[in-house]
């Protein structure tokens, strides 16, 4: 029996409650697994397709073409906004990133039902992996935006890069915060994904993507403008436009006063939302295995 205690007693772990998740910190601790799950998601998504990851270029390109011709050419936005393609595209990549994050995180837990039901893992892994997959898909869009911007005389500056980083941080935090809540709710009510679908529709049109924010300022009452500018996605989009589009123009189109300050406040609120999302998720996840 001595050899037995030799193998089993080499390390002496304490008795601990199984399945007591450490939440997002646990996800960070198991980042090796997280990386493999992200790779699996990417692999599975393009399984058997000829273009593979190339689809992450085709989709934004198609989006771009539709919006460019409808808004830019037919609705004559190109005449009102200098370098309209980049104005729109810098907004489009961020909006697509948010929508994709929200939709994919919502399905993340239900989509991994076999694993959730049978093996204990920190369940936050799945929504976080979805966020990272969206980040991978954001890269091609950003590369195109930067390429076009550089062609129009964009040069990197602290203000531009800071704006872009703040805009991204704001939208990503908001996305994962909402995503945690939605993915947990979706386990219990499959209506969640339908509701999220509708939300993404509103998101697409409620940000200054195919029209400048000044249009809202000039046509809507003051309280509506306040509401419009309180939308964190509007702030994120404005920041991206300030980062990539504005430096290529003559700078006549103004940005709302205190954009940076408001964005920092929104970011702080998004961090609070993420905390709330983590709390809701960790409470609901206790019943995931029996619901699925």
């Amino acid at each position, binding site marked *: *029996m001595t*050899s*037995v*205690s030799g*193998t*089993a*007693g080499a*390390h002496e*772990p*304490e*008795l*601990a*409650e*199984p*399945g*007591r998740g450490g939440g997002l910190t646990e996800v960070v601790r*198991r980042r*090796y*697994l997280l990386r*493999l*799950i992200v790779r*699996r998601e990417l*692999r*599975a998504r393009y*399984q058997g397709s000829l273009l593979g990851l190339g689809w992450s270029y085709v989709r934004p390109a198609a989006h771009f073409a539709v919006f460019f011709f409808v808004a830019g050419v037919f609705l004559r936005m190109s005449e009102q906004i200098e370098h309209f393609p980049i104005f729109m595209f810098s907004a489009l990549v961020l909006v697509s990133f948010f929508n994709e994050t929200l939709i994919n995180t919502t399905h993340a837990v239900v989509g991994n039902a*076999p*694993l*959730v*039901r*049978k*093996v*204990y*893992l920190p369940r936050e892994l799945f929504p976080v992996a979805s966020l990272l997959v969206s980040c991978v898909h954001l890269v091609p869009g950003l590369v195109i935006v930067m390429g076009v911007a550089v062609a129009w005389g964009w040069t990197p500056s602290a203000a531009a890069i800071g704006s872009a980083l703040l805009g991204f941080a704001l939208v990503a935090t908001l996305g994962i915060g909402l995503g945690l809540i939605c993915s947990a709710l979706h386990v219990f009510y499959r209506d969640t994904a339908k509701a999220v679908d509708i939300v993404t529709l509103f998101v697409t049109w409620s940000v200054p993507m195919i029209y400048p924010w000044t249009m809202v300022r000039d046509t809507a009452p003051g309280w509506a403008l306040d509401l419009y500018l309180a939308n964190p996605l509007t702030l994120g989009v404005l920041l991206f436009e300030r980062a990539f589009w504005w430096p290529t123009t003559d700078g006549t189109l103004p940005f709302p006063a205190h954009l940076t300050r408001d964005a920092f406040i929104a970011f702080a609120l998004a961090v609070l939302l993420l905390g709330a999302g983590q709390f809701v998720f960790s409470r609901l996840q*206790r019943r995931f*295995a*029996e619901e699925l």
Partner: protein
Amino acid sequence: MDEPRRAVVVDAVTKRFTLRHARSIKNMTLRTLHGKRLRDRFTALDAVSVTIDVGEAVALVGLNGSGKSTLLKIISGVMPPDEGSVRVRGRIAGLIEVGAGLHPDLTGRENVFLNGAILGMDREETLRKFDSIVEFADIGRFLDQPVRFYSSGMFMRLAFSIAVHTDPDVFLIDEVLAVGDPLFRRKCIERLHEYRDSGRTMVVVAHDANLLRQLCTRGVFLEDGRVRWDGDIDTAADMLLKKRQERRRAEANPSGAVEAGR
């Protein structure tokens, strides 16, 4: 020092499940209008206490619906108990329906890494054990094929092989030995014997009474979510056979079902 060390402590665990009869608003309204119940609760585990020492091989036996799989899930941490507490020492690997972590679109090789990580191995550990895992699974040239093209036997072999190579401190096994070809089955059982002899802890759920007699030293018989017997494996296995016979007789002769039914 002589006092046995606990590997698993299940203390007065109760688990209730809610059966929802209606999910949509329409069905809920209809059921309410007809005066029917919207949900039923049933108790899957009723104040179950089991203590397992390090190095023990314990079989959980019982008829279908007795709560043994639920108990295994609670030990693994997949489900928290409603009342009572569970504590486990060290790394647990569940073979709770093997293959949950295998992704059909990934190749065998990729699945070894992914499933290994799911069961708690890091990259170095997987690399170190890779050859041994592949050899044990005996999947040969299919290693770089997507798992979706595997035969069910190959699938099981790969999944089982990864799981046994994680070297968990507590190994939970649920119904996995029921499948697979006889040859591989024997290999698995040998492996589990080795594993047990190395002083690690094992909790097994299986329907094969003879296999359990070979593999386990102790049996816990569950019925309707309560522990009816906790002691030597032979008694537990005999109880299982007897209960099964009773049930079969009750099914063959429905008039007698009242006394034997659950």
